[in-house]
């Protein structure tokens, strides 16, 4: 009976770990659906809110910035400019903030069945993506309504969104790992994101305000600025900045590799207390 004995004290090889994740792809798809439906549990409109939330937000922006105030701050179509910035930024923010408490939120599940815990983080990114897609679609409609001309190059948003998913995943692995060992992080993260929000040109055009070339370079290295600006370039059909793209890809690769490694290293302790 001593055939196929395996050493359980050795961590799984990367390949086996990824295989275990692949085996549970049905679980990966049902977790976000479960999360989304339980979040809207008890509301009359249920998951319709997924589409209604961004729609209402867009209406408010339109009312405030295009009808009541006529502020441009150096931008032609400010309502669209703002809408893109906010929705793109929120997608990353939601992934990372939600992941910081994902281990704690799933203690009951982890204590009942074994599964690679990285699935929890993957599910968070998937869930925020599912909430982001209707918003992104509505932004495009909004852009067309407020004067932008639809163009086939809008399709570039597909690879950009995929890249953003990977970026979010890397950052989320870090926040899940750190949030598990330092629960206080959950409370500190919103302020970090508030800071990033103002530092990533979500509300204003960086080029219109910043003249110093050195400071502009610093903005270029901020991946959140990159995400927001690349999406805007695509929608207003302007050439995409290769510097921003390179910085974003580098950040994504760095966060994915280090984040996944850090998350796996902490995995034996998740759910122990």
């Amino acid at each position, binding site marked *: 009976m001593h*055939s196929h004995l*395996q050493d*359980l*004290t050795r961590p799984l090889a990367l390949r086996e770990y990824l295989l275990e994740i692949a085996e549970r792809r049905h679980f990966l798809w049902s977790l976000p659906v*479960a999360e989304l*439906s339980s979040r809207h*549990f008890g509301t009359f409109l249920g998951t319709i809110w997924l589409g209604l939330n961004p729609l209402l937000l867009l209406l408010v922006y339109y009312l405030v910035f295009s009808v009541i105030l006529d502020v441009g701050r150096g931008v032609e179509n400010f309502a669209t400019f703002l809408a893109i910035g906010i929705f793109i930024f929120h997608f990353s923010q939601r992934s990372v903030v939600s992941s910081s408490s994902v281990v704690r939120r799933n203690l*009951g599940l982890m204590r009942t069945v074994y599964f690679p815990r990285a699935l929890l983080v993957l599910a968070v990114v998937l869930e925020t993506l599912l909430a982001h897609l209707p918003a992104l679609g509505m932004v495009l409609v909004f852009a067309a309504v407020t004067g932008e001309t639809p163009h086939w190059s809008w399709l570039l948003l597909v690879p950009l969104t995929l890249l953003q998913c990977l970026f979010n995943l890397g950052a989320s692995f870090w926040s899940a790992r750190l949030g598990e060992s330092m629960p206080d992080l959950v409370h500190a993260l919103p302020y970090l994101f508030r800071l990033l929000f103002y530092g990533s040109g979500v509300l204003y055009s960086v080029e219109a305000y910043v003249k110093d070339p050195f400071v502009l370079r610093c903005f270029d290295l901020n991946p959140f600025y990159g995400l927001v600006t690349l999406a805007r370039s695509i929608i207003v059909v302007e050439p995409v900045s290769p510097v921003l793209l390179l910085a974003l890809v580098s950040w994504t690769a760095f966060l994915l590799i280090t984040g996944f490694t850090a998350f796996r290293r902490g995995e*034996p302790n998740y759910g122990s207390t």
Partner: protein
Amino acid sequence: MSRLRTVKAVRGISLELESGDCLGVLGSNGSGKSTLMRALAGLVPIAQGSVQATARPRLLGVGGALRPLLTGRHNIMLGCMALGMTRREASDRVDDVIQVAKLGEAIDRPMSGYSSGMSARLRFAIATASTPEILIVDEALSVGDEAFRRTSSKRIEKILNESGCILFVSHSLSQIQDLCNRALWIEDGRIVMAGDPAEIIHHYQHYQQAARFQRR
């Protein structure tokens, strides 16, 4: 247990189990039972020694709801898929799991309203939804009532008959007596006795009485 300090919770324990074995694990609170079980499941890094097994043990510990806002039924689906089943396989299993959990109409209510006994029943039913090769039950059945005890015993016997292997941590000596063919008693992270359940329970009861007397 502090994260910053290394605690030697378990030392010098060596044991070997065959398929069809059911090992009852006894010991006072804090004797290292749970740590040992988590180490066997490969969930706690161990400083020395090794754990060899034919499959990764499935560990069922004490805990609350899986997903509090979801119904029991939805939680079953989720749990089955976490075990690696496809959506179709999971929905084929649901009725079977419901029968073990015996929750009546509560199965369609959110798990947040379940008592600890109801939660334990559902979690046990999910954890054994597919027959595990090695199952570790860490006090997860202590909160159930008599009816559930009978169903869970039946389920455990079925796993043993299908040449599974079970490690069973419980403070209920009668349960260990009924289900286990071997027993292990540990105190302070070391083996006190190992072998026949009836004999070990006998000595363990004497030990507990003596300890109670000393405290007085």
